[in-house]
């Protein structure tokens, strides 16, 4: 029964008991007529509405607390934590290698970025950054850039779906499917790959992989072109997005936003250019910016960035093929104390350790067998110290802070997920707009709650 009450009960924006004597209605299980009649009788009351965490347009389990005046949002706050899974804490109880399987699940739309960020950080702590084979770095760059396209496609597709443009979603997911097929053939999984490892990558590309990627790229470009045609000049799309979710440069910088949000305000901030890693300084690509600082600008930027990413992929493919012509190249550091011992091969009995490896460890070398056991059970030791590694995630700056006490597991692993920081801009973007604009603004932030809550 929903009776108006002025007793202290938890409210949307304040702590329990801090209603300030305000009238409160609970809109569950009661008679709505009664509530609305009472609200009409007291028109000066403020109305606080909960949007989410189950609302389909809040991108997963994001809870939005909106204070509204008619259709206008006067105050907007985000409620997070509904997808908290304790990934960082769990990583403290796993070896450095096993940690990859955990951090890949943070921002599950862009899993390879967490993997690369984490592995670069571990490599920095081990002081083997320069020893990582070139081929492993090339593969990492290719996987990251393909993943960037996939992540932006999700942002644009689901964003369009929330505006009612279901076609945006179907086309975006179709294009993403091509990328996931590439991932499946290279890593064996479509998401959450655990493919990047400290010291390199788990396994080399399968035969014909570069050719396969080349064949998929025109298809992906074509679908991106379809999305552009559907959205960029569409009067309804323009009407919904232009001028909505406005966040000027000063606001974006003050709130620590990065990625397309910051670049849409005009700052060409991209870590691939400003602090290159994985050899990004050797690729020819541009950092698109915009000055409108609204949701539409962010959509335009995502389209531009996808095309730039595909440009990088083409350059990586050229280099990988040039390497292929020169014979076999390692994909893992030479240091056997760190390199995971496995050499996987696919046979009629499925995928498993290659028979050559078995023959060596079980048939001839007891030392190799002991080493295999030590690395699998205990893992490798990482010198005590701490490290901070940043990479350019599709959504902004991904920071990885690792602390080692010299053991085989992290003492502490912390991720600065871009979605988390970008989500802080929510209030600035939404307040003063309408409820419908909130949906657009949140879509332009593109938060993934797996990353926000970790």
């Amino acid at each position, binding site marked *: 029964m929903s009776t108006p009450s002025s007793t202290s009960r938890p409210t949307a924006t304040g702590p329990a008991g801090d209603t300030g004597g305000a009238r409160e209605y609970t809109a569950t299980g009661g008679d709505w007529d009664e509530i609305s009649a009472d609200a009409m009788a007291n028109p000066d009351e403020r109305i606080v509405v909960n949007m989410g965490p189950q609302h389909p347009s809040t991108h997963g389990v994001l809870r939005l607390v909106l204070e509204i005046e008619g259709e206008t949002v006067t105050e907007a706050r985000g409620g997070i934590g509904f997808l908290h899974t304790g990934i960082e804490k769990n990583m403290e109880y796993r070896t450095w290698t096993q940690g990859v399987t955990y951090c890949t699940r943070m921002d599950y739309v862009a899993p390879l970025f967490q993997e690369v960020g984490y592995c670069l950080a571990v490599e920095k702590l081990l002081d083997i950054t320069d020893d990582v084979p070139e081929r492993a770095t090339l593969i990492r760059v290719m996987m990251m850039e393909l993943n960037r396209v996939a992540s932006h496609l999700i942002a644009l597709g689901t964003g369009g779906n929330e505006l009612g443009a279901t076609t945006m979603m179907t086309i975006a997911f179709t294009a993403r499917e091509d990328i996931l097929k590439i991932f499946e053939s290279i890593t064996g999984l479509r998401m959450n790959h655990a493919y990047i490892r400290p010291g390199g990558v788990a396994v080399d590309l399968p035969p014909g992989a570069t050719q396969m990627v080349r064949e998929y790229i025109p298809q992906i470009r074509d679908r991106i072109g379809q999305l552009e045609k559907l959205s960029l*000049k569409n009067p309804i799309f323009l009407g919904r997005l232009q001028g909505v*979710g406005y966040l000027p*440069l000063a606001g974006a910088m003050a709130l620590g936003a990065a990625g397309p949000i910051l670049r849409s305000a005009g700052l060409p901030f991209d870590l691939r250019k400003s602090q290159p890693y994985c050899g990004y300084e050797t690729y020819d690509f541009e950092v698109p910016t915009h000055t409108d600082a609204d949701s539409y600008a962010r959509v335009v930027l995502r389209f531009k960035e996808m095309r730039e990413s595909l440009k990088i992929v083409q350059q990586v493919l050229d280099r990988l093929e040039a390497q292929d012509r020169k014979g076999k190249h390692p994909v893992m550091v030479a240091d056997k104390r760190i390199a995971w011992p496995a050499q996987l091969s696919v046979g009629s009995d499925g995928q498993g350790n290659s028979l050559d490896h078995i023959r060596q460890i079980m048939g001839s070398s007891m030392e190799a067998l002991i080493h295999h056991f030590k690395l699998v059970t205990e893992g490798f030791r990482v010198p005590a110290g701490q490290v901070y590694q940043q990479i350019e995630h599709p959504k902004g700056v991904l920071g990885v802070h690792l602390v080692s006490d010299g053991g085989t597991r992290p003492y502490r692993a912390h991720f600065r997920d871009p979605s988390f920081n970008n989500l802080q801009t929510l209030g600035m973007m939404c307040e003063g707009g309408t409820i419908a604009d909130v949906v657009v603004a949140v879509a332009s932030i593109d938060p993934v709650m797996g990353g926000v809550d970790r």
Partner: protein
Amino acid sequence: MADSTGKGRGRSPEPRTTKTAMGATHDVQNFDVDSDEDKSALEEFFAPVAGFGVTMASLFRPVVTEQYPFEKKPTAPRYHGRHQLNRHPDGLEKCIGCELCAWACPADAIYVEAGNNTPDAQYAPGERYGKVYQINYLRCIFCGLCIEACPTRALTMTNDYELADTTREKMIFEKDQLLAPLRSGMLSAPHPMVEGTTDGDYYRGAVTGPTAEQVDWVREHRPEDPSLESAADPGRAQGGKR
């Protein structure tokens, strides 16, 4: 907070700012939304309704929907599917119960209990075999660290992905569900190793199939064993040791 914001903050001020922001790398005024091709004047004119063109063209594009479960598309060869416990060519199990897979598993999904091989019950070459082997598919994350850890290629991953079931108990796969079926010519365990071999010979690939002695041993101890028929076939690989 609410009183300080006022209306209109979510909307950009009109007219929209056009001043070049600090160090922008692009000519923002002539921002080209479709970098692939220069648009003709006609295309520019019809751009607001270009979406209809996409819709019409879609009528003539091949359908991308996959008709699962009526048509199953094969996965990539490397796909991480259901696990399989393999056998040596003579039918002995490859798993030696070392528990490395359980150690490597980041999700604690594997439980292994080793048992001692005896002359009466020799399941795997060498001293020990996997007596209890369980994989909990409610925990498994299919990362593949277990197959990378397995020192005997006993554990591999197949491309089988249809793992859903109705109860939690059924999702814990036991050894008999995971063990690879006997291929034609293999002799079901337990039976003695090929005479005159060590476990090292098995890992070096020296054993190619069951020998007559092994067949005789099984015939004596388990006369009803269905694998006897194909293993005893003289046309089959009566290889023993190469």
